[in-house]
């Protein structure tokens, strides 16, 4: 079972602001999802290789050849804030 505190913690990690009613709602919804996933655990998966991907493709590679980049101007075009050739962000010092 997932607790309301865990929902708060995960929301904080994802920088989501949610109000108290939403916290209760998400707690119950997430628990429903976990319950549903738990049902899959009833299947016997002995001898089945774990998979991390829905399609059976492996080794999709790219050759090491340079293709023109966007360039500074286009790279910054959608930025909420920029100055000169840089993105500008609130100062974060860890």
């Amino acid at each position, binding site marked *: 079972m997932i607790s309301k505190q865990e929902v708060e*913690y995960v929301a904080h*990690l994802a*920088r989501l602001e949610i109000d108290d009613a939403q916290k209760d709602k998400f707690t119950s919804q997430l628990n429903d999802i976990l319950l549903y996933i738990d049902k899959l655990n009833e299947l016997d998966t002995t001898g089945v290789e774990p998979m*991390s*991907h*829905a*399609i059976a*493709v*492996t*080794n*999709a*590679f*790219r*050759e*090491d*050849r*340079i*293709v023109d*980049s*966007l*360039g*500074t101007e286009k*790279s*910054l075009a959608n930025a909420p804030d920029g*100055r*000169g*050739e*840089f*993105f*500008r*962000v*609130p*100062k*974060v*010092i*860890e």
Partner: protein
Amino acid sequence: MEFETVIGLEVHAQLLTNTKIFCNCSTKFGGAPNSHACPVCLGMPGVLPVLNKKVVEFAMKMSLATNCIINKSCSFARKNYFYPDLPKGYQISQYAYPLSEHGYVFLEVDGAQKKIGITRIHMEEDAGKLMHDEHNPVSYVDLNRAGVPLIEIVSEPDMRSPEEAADYLKRLHEILVYLEICDGNMEEGSFRCDANVSIRPVGQKEFGTRSELKNMNSFRNVQRALEYEVKRQQYIVENGGNIVQETRLWDDAQGVTNSMRSKEEAHDYRYFPDPDLVPIIVDDAWIEAIRKELPELPLAKRERFVKDYQIPAYDAGVLTADKALSNYYEEVVRLCRSPKAASNWVMGDVLRFLNEEKRDIRNCPITAASLAEMISLIEDGTISGKMAKDIVEKMYKTGSAPKAIIAEKGMVQITDEGELLKTISAIMAANPNQLGDYRGGKDKLFGFFVGQVMKATQGKANPQIVNELLKKMLAG
């Protein structure tokens, strides 16, 4: 109380590919800010990263060179955290299924070989670069580096002193540069190191609480930071305190480590498999193909130098520490066939000149052919070792070949016995008192006569011949 130091290192090496790990942007250092960026490395929604094959091959090379076992299957995961240098809000890295594991390298500790375990090597993308404004509460972001391929090499906590840690780093650095997969530039950040360090009372099995050190941009600083940190931890424990698990930054100017103000909660990266990237399967044929491409590695070269050239292990270590230097040395030996003399000249004069100017052997004005020629001229008696000292300096300053310098300065060694006999006779005639004293038993005056001959010939006389002739003549 006696303490034992325990150190493990995490090394990040930028790979020398042309393009980034998941897109076709150039990895070139020094472009205009944000000019090497595209929707993939800018983290735009809806884009699809595709893995650069060369990254896998370079990482495989390092894995094989450090005796790691390459996993048959590996995959990428997302490491989630928010920081302005990370446009997507996650870093694509490897977590549960790294490329390779269980490797090792050897260090020489107290004359014996010590094995340092390598836990794993994995591939990941680099983040962008942040510049903080000094006056305003803002930072500037350059994403040219975002997506540049890295390998992370994680060691076992096998090192027992800061010196061993620095030595291990040098070994890794050497191998990466030999493989030509990383330029190894620590100042520019293409080779970076974080260190985990703890202490424990001698005899205790459990590890002590560790601190993680960052921000050390040279081998020397890694060692200094570790030495400081070991002392700091000992002081705390000896005064009844407890070590706090934390990240500390090395302050080069002050020579201390400082705690990074840690956030309220510990990092929780919520790793999960990246659905954008499919698994990588490495079969034996691929591994063998990569193995065939491996060059001779530093350790093997060192052993070969000792065996084939009969030079001391120390010399072989210096000469093989840099691949270009080892190639230079081998070229000199090939041309002059005097390994010991070549080693002395390369390690002595040539390296001294280069170090004084912080110059690289690749830009050395003395070509291997010139140095070999000079060594041959000493060996065939054309010039003396003393003359060669002057000549090699002129070779370095002018880039001229030794024969040209010798011709220009009239520096050919005098080996003609008749000419030397005349000189010696004149000196004996001019110094009757000294001659008398010598013949009266003052053997030490022999040196005086050698000096006079050298002075008279401006140092050009062949010393062996002078010795022989003087002995005969002075005896009377």
